[in-house]
């Protein structure tokens, strides 16, 4: 089993799925509620037959997860070991954009740990690759860090938009449309975060 396969087997549990490695087929079978819904060969998941609505949704999450995991596993396997006095041993360089750098280390049991730092910034450690990427994007100057909202902030924003739509009678149709669109966007952003935390159930 390679690192990708080990990592994907660990991470599909976040989606309330189980995974079994098939040595004869060099693949990972993913089951949900006892049914095999995906077969992962290389880094690509394939449907194993007709799936119901919930299974199809889980399959989409598996596909996104595979791309995500392949991204950092490949970078890790090609990454050079780094020596940085602020980091313990075992980290390998993954990405660099401008002054921002991302590295990771791998442990068979606990999976990956990511670290992000800049020229004049102390390293920040993450278990979540998504959070590490966000920090990396902000540090590299691609996105203003004030434009990135964390989970709690997104929920508070959603609450405010929701309350405004509920109790503000003075909104005209254009404003209502705009706010509904913003609410929909916030809803998706929060759902994606929650699905990652709660196991893919949106």
């Amino acid at each position, binding site marked *: 089993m390679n690192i990708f396969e080990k990592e994907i087997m660990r991470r599909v549990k976040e989606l309330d799925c189980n995974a079994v490695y098939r040595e004869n087929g060099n693949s990972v079978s993913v089951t949900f509620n006892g049914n095999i819904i995906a077969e992962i060969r290389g880094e690509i998941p394939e449907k194993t037959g007709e799936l119901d609505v919930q299974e199809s949704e889980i399959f989409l999450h598996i596909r996104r997860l595979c791309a995500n995991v392949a991204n950092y596993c490949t970078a890790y396997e090609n990454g050079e070991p780094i*020596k*940085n006095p602020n980091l313990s041993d075992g980290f390998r360089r993954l990405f660099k954009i401008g002054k921002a750098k991302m590295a990771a280390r791998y442990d068979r049991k606990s999976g990956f740990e990511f670290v992000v730092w800049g020229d004049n910034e102390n390293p920040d450690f993450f278990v979540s690759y998504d959070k590490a990427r966000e920090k990396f994007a902000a540090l590299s100057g*691609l996105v203003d860090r004030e434009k990135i909202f964390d989970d709690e902030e997104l929920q508070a924003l959603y609450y*405010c*938009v929701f309350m405004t739509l509920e109790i503000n009678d003075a909104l005209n149709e254009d*404003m209502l449309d705009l706010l509904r669109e*913003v609410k929909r966007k916030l809803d998706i*952003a929060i759902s994606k975060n929650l699905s990652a935390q709660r196991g893919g159930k949106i």
Partner: protein
Amino acid sequence: MIKATIQNSPYCTEIVFPCTETELSKKLGEIKMNSEHLVPMAMVLEIEPAELSMLTDCDVSLDALNYLGKRLDGMDEGEYKQYLAVLSCTEISEGWGLKNMINLTDNLARYTLIGDTDDLERIGRTHMLNVRGVLSESEYNNSEWLAEEGMKLLESGKGIDTEYGKIFVNDEIPFEEHFNGTTLPPYLYNGAPVTVDISYMGLTEMVELPCEDLAIKKAVCRIGADRVSDCKLEISTFTDLPDDLRDKVMAMEKTKSVFEINQLLKTVDFSAKQEQPMSIFQKEVARRLSEDGYNFKFENGEFAVTLNDGDVIKIRKDDVLYSSGDFFETGREAFYALYHLNREVLDYCTAYEKSAPLIADGLSGNYRCLAEFGGAVLAAKYNDEFGFEFVTWDRTFDGKSVCNGNYCSDYAAAKENFATRSGLVDKDKLFSTEELERIGKCVKFTMQNCGDLNFDDCECLKKLNEKISENIPEQQSEAPEMSM
């Protein structure tokens, strides 16, 4: 300048720093040392200026001493006196070996030297310039404030008498270690057209090209690498090189052919090049100022932008100086607008100059790759007439080409597009200015109309409101409330 008598027992010689590698090699030969030694050490018998005498009878790295010589050479008279005053003061000790003598060159802000204590305004100006590094023109001319700061400094009673004047230790500024004793910090001494940051296992040294080959070998050795091919290279160019030469220089990051490029650069006459009037940064600032309708002129390497009321704001490469006394409201707005313009142009010009050409099958135009992540590419192309064009692409499945280009001239928009396209940031978590403006109004509405919020909720919403305001341009965030 440092003059030293060095010994490799029983041979001695006199040497003056800074010196070239050739001169140093010759001196090493005179004391029967390997003239191409990569880490030459010798004992110092005598040294001038006398303030460096703590090095007497010590074995020191001659390259580090040479580096210190360059740093002292680069100081103006005031800085040089300040440096010597600190070393001459027995009450101040940072463990003055060669290592911290070098570190002192980067830590002069920690020590204010006052030669003449009669003029409070001048004392204040000297002190504030030393501590802050820069003053706006209005601050520079604010006699009352400067005299007050001068008085505060004198009344602190912390002045220590030296032969150069009174030295004050600014305890709030820590003594920072930039030089670890082995790897020499970057310092542009020759003003070379190309610099190379050579990195290995987390350590980096900068060399200026063209230079003597031995300087490159020594830098590689000091970061602990056996060969330059084992190192990571980052190139910066400071002169408009001809396209073919620039391509070769930038390709060095991959080919690692530092010595070949060094030889090639030695054959180029840069004196003519350096007389070119404007860099890409300057051309781009000029283009952006024209585009935004500013009235400006370019003289002596800086832009002078004249506002409607006659005030003038000056722009230099990494600074914006307001240069006409008081800071009126209209001037302040223009100042911040120009400050942001300057920072943004500097940001993308620096990124562009440091980037390698984008290699992709079938791609026309000289694009450079600013960033690549998760199958997405952020690239830029420069043209004297139209300025910069930014584009984000997807790499094709085989990684050899690019597709689905999204072209724009707005750098911030291109970066955001790249951030979402590459998957670094979820597109549903990024909001446009218009969306943020709406959300901000909802937050305000909720704070004012939802009575069941507790103290913590209100504080949280207050902070969110401030964060959102940061993202909205001034005129929009301060626009009148809509009837929500």
